[in-house]
């Protein structure tokens, strides 16, 4: 189940409605970019969808959710904790198995940070931390990707590297992006959010940057 039909999505904050009520249907194979100015409700919508699919999705939240005291490897490995028994995970904390080490190293190499394998996450820069969270989401290997501004701390080539990796690994995805060019380049469908409502929903090849700008 990688596509979904969700209706009656609403969220309130401090008694004030920030999202919805709205409905969103996403088909398998669709790569959706959520666009809109900050505060429009993109992050809230991502969280709502994550709740509605009961966590059955690879998630890159805006605050990344990394365990700062653990090295990069373990933060990535956490994406597959459910596939191993407790003793295996415990041993991995002390000394990772070769097969997991190789899988994670390959992933980190692809994201341009293989040398950071053992680095404590707390010692990384913002862009590096973001890529660790992306690596964890990829390693998680769910059918659906939910990502909230996964490239906000990355510049040019690295941003494309991450977006390419994500589009290769996930057929179905919903990614909140503030960069309109990136959204048009990597998404198949653009959903614009304004004041908690869907103000634009169009296939990306029928849109140009100028069509999206009024949302901002």
């Amino acid at each position, binding site marked *: 189940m990688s596509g979904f039909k969700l209706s009656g999505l609403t969220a309130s904050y401090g008694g004030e409605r920030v999202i919805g009520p709205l409905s969103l249907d996403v088909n398998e194979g669709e790569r959706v970019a959520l666009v809109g100015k900050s505060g429009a409700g993109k992050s809230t919508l991502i969280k709502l969808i994550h709740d509605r699919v009961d966590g059955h999705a690879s998630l890159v939240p805006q605050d990344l*959710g990394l365990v700062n005291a653990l090295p990069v490897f373990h933060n990535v490995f*956490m994406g597959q904790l*459910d596939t191993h028994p407790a003793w295996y*995970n415990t041993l991995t*904390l002390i000394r990772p198995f070769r097969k997991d080490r190789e899988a994670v190293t390959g992933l980190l190499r692809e994201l341009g940070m293989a040398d950071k394998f053992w680095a404590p996450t707390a010692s990384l820069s913002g862009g590096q931390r973001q890529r660790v969270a992306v690596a964890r989401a990829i390693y998680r290997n769910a059918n659906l990707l939910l990502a909230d501004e996964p490239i906000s701390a990355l510049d040019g080539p690295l941003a494309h590297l991450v977006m390419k990796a994500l589009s290769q690994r996930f057929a179905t995805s919903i990614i909140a992006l503030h960069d309109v060019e990136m959204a048009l380049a990597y998404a198949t469908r653009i959903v614009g959010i304004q004041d908690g409502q869907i103000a634009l929903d169009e296939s990306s090849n029928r849109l140009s940057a100028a069509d999206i700008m009024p949302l901002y």
Partner: protein
Amino acid sequence: MHLSPTLRISLLFLVIAIAALFFADIAITTANPWRDLGRFFLGVATPDFFSTEGLATALLRTVAFAFVGVALGGACGFLLSLIYRFYPVRIFCAFIRAIHELFWALIFLQFFGFHPLTGVLAIAIPYAGIFAKVYSEILEEADPGPARLLPPGTGLISTFLYTRIPDCWVQLRTYTAYRLECGLRSSAILGFVGLPTLGFYLETSFSQGLYSEAGAMLILFYVLIATIPLWVKPKLLPVYILGAPFFLGDGMPIIWGNVERFFTQDIIPAPLRDGEGLAELGSWFGDLMLTEALPGIWNTLLLTQIALVATGILTLLAFPLISNHFGGPIRRTSGHVFLVIARSTPEYILAYILLQLWGPSMLPAVVALALHNGGIIGHLIGRQTNTIQLRPDAPTGYRRYSWELVPRVYRSFLAFLFYRWEIIMRETAILGILGIYTLGFYVDSAIQQIRFDRAMVLILITALLNIGIDVLGRYIRRKLALQTMPTC
């Protein structure tokens, strides 16, 4: 006149302490207290490390009991911390930590006798209660975010190990190391009730007037505590923990008949044991309350309040000794030495020494409690002032102290003081064993008269009193919005 809430509460406690002074028994009763004090300091200055072969054994046993007790308490405390959110667990932990190590030792002595288990459990049980509370507070602080991101179906153990423990690891380790230091002190004083640790040898030397021998023991104890970072290394810990049980000594074998008798007869209130009915039980209890519990509670409260305020005053006087904002390196070094000695010496040993020198009254207890606790808080506050940046043209001397520093640290000073309120009361009760008429005195006499039923009721009352003070202290800290990390 407008007074800030913190100042108002300080004044209230000061007034209570002054009033308590009028009722308290404060006196120096020995004929020549200063000569004895002089002889004691002479003894410390001329330590005799080779007078008795027992010295090395005493230190070894002290370390062994501390390691086994703290390790066992830590393990149980950790397990309890995982279920600490359940109310009955909280109550249970509050109860076992409200009873002082020495009281636990006195209880176990009655049925396990001088078996190593007595000393180990006396440390492990109250420490488990403290560990459970502090560990659970530390674990609660962990960031809940990463756990929410884990794939559904991730096991409880994996979730806990990956998302909770790493974030808290440093704090858990620091606190456990700190408790190990406390454990060494607890272990040392267990000797005063007859276990083969430092206190036992110290008491023997003192009672024979062998001050050089006693001085040597104290100096070695300070060295032991001051060098903890050198000899307690993570890699060596398993060796210590696995090895320590073999160095506890043999003690005496447990007589299981005693254990059974203790629970089925000794601690049953006498009127019930003798089948005299409930009316008799009522008058038994009334008599116990009137002649022992109430005087004990009264004296415990008096001494606690005086000692608390004395601790506060000493802290405020002592923290400039190690503060970077005053004076030169010589004063700071000697300040550090003074505070290290003050806080490394268990209050029980301080009180014992002063009691030998000054004779029985509340004075030695007040001074001992103030020195030990003032040493701990003074050290923490002094270190805190070192993080304060003053403007370049800030006043110096007394005006710097009173206008720049004290106002900045006063809230955390109060937080630490109220945090230690309950600890001071627990200690106050126990000092009764030395002959001051607090609750411990009545517990000790009941045990000596082999009236364990009365002793148990009195210990229970002491525990309830401690829990009451703990709740009150926490209420005041919350009311004044005082935040602190656990210190002991």
